[in-house]
């Protein structure tokens, strides 16, 4: 019982801190990539900027757009953020730091995080705003399309490890990280691409393409409701990176340092990679994105599944 309470409180603390840190980090990284300074006023190199922003968002008034479906509109932030919090139930931070090692771990995380798309679509539909509706529709189409190659690459790891438990998968990589095996390295690549699409980041950020849709599905949200979408977005990034770390990069395993440090280094390394990609690549078009998911990634991951399955039983 104590374990559960402490775990829960630390997860909530971790989520808030990590989201605030990542928003600051993204602003700094983007600024330095573009030869700017980024936030510099609040604290050392703007390090308190996110705290200032969250205080500001806390004090903003709540505007409900006219004609909005009020219930759907106000429930949407819950549907976006709650699954992300729930996903942390079974993320293995180290050998002992895990709230609960569910025996269906990876399946649980994959199914819980896919509820987010419901919230995004509710936000888009409920707002009674054309940009939001377009953003929500695109987001739903994109997330479900990239879900297929994403899950197929996860299945490959399950085949290799023979277990769904997150700790079990980490322990199965004692002999070597899965990313070092050729078929799983390919699955890792597919996972990275589709997870970028899952969390709506560049080059797959057409649901919130600023230059065409305003802010996409959360255009009509103000104050804390808007903040929740942001928290969910950045925490989702941490979740997909944590899954990638657990499945392909050996989780918390590593020499010298304690497991927690290795885990965080790998996770934030992947997050930084995603930020680097975001500020380097241009956005793809809707048709290019859908075509890429269904005509390239899905056939390739099915092929990868069949070939490596044959390799394992041969």
């Amino acid at each position, binding site marked *: 019982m104590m374990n559960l309470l402490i775990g829960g409180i630390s997860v909530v603390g971790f989520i808030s801190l990590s989201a605030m840190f990542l928003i600051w980090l993204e602003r700094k990284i983007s600024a330095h990539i573009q030869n700017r300074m980024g936030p510099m006023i609040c604290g050392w190199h703007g390090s308190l900027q996110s705290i200032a922003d969250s205080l500001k968002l806390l004090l903003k008034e709540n505007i409900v757009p006219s004609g909005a479906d009020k219930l759907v509109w106000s429930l949407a932030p819950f549907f976006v953020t709650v699954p992300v919090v729930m996903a942390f139930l079974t993320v293995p931070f180290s050998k002992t730091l895990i709230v609960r090692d569910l025996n269906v771990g990876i399946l649980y995380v994959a199914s819980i995080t896919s509820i987010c798309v419901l919230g995004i679509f509710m936000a888009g539909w409920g707002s009674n705003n054309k940009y939001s509706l377009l953003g929500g529709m695109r987001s739903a189409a994109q997330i479900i*399309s990239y879900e297929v190659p994403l899950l197929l690459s996860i299945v490959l790891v399950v085949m290799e490890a023979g277990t769904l438990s997150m700790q079990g998968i980490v322990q199965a990589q004692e002999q070597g990280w899965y990313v070092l095996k050729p078929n799983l390295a390919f699955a890792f690549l597919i996972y990275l691409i589709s997870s970028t699409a899952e969390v709506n980041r560049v080059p797959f950020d057409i649901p919130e393409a600023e230059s065409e849709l305003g802010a996409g599905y959360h255009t009509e949200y103000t104050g804390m409701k808007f903040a929740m979408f942001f928290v969910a977005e950045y925490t989702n990034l941490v979740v997909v990176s944590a899954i990638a770390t657990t499945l392909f990069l050996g989780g918390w395993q590593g020499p010298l340092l304690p497991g927690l440090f290795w885990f965080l280094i790998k996770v934030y390394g992947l997050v930084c990679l995603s930020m680097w990609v975001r500020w380097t690549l241009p956005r793809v078009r809707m048709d290019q994105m859908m075509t890429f998911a269904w005509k390239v990634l899905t056939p390739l991951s099915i092929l990868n599944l069949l070939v490596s399955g044959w390799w394992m039983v041969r």
Partner: protein
Amino acid sequence: MLPDYIYIMFFLALGIGFVGSAFAVSWVLRPKVPENAVKNAPYECGEVVKGTSRVQFNVRYYLFALIFVVFDVEILFITPWAVVFRQMGMIAYIEMLIFILILALGLGYAWKKGALEWQ
């Protein structure tokens, strides 16, 4: 040891509590300013709002959703197979090969029919 579902339910409550408490604090602190029609109008880059946004939508989105359901169920079937795959060996592989090939045939059919084109 508590059963797994208690943990999941607790985290569900935790998530709702996390979002709910943030909203509650904001509800207490934020200013209550009178509303007016212009402020509440949906954002359309400063233009006067035209009509509702609940309009007929491109049917393509639904086609992709249908194909997705097929593949999602496929993955649901594959997952338990993947767990016991190593113990079962060749027979399991061939059975899944037939299943996946049928679905791949379906994908090929959708491709041929133009369901994967985005116009």
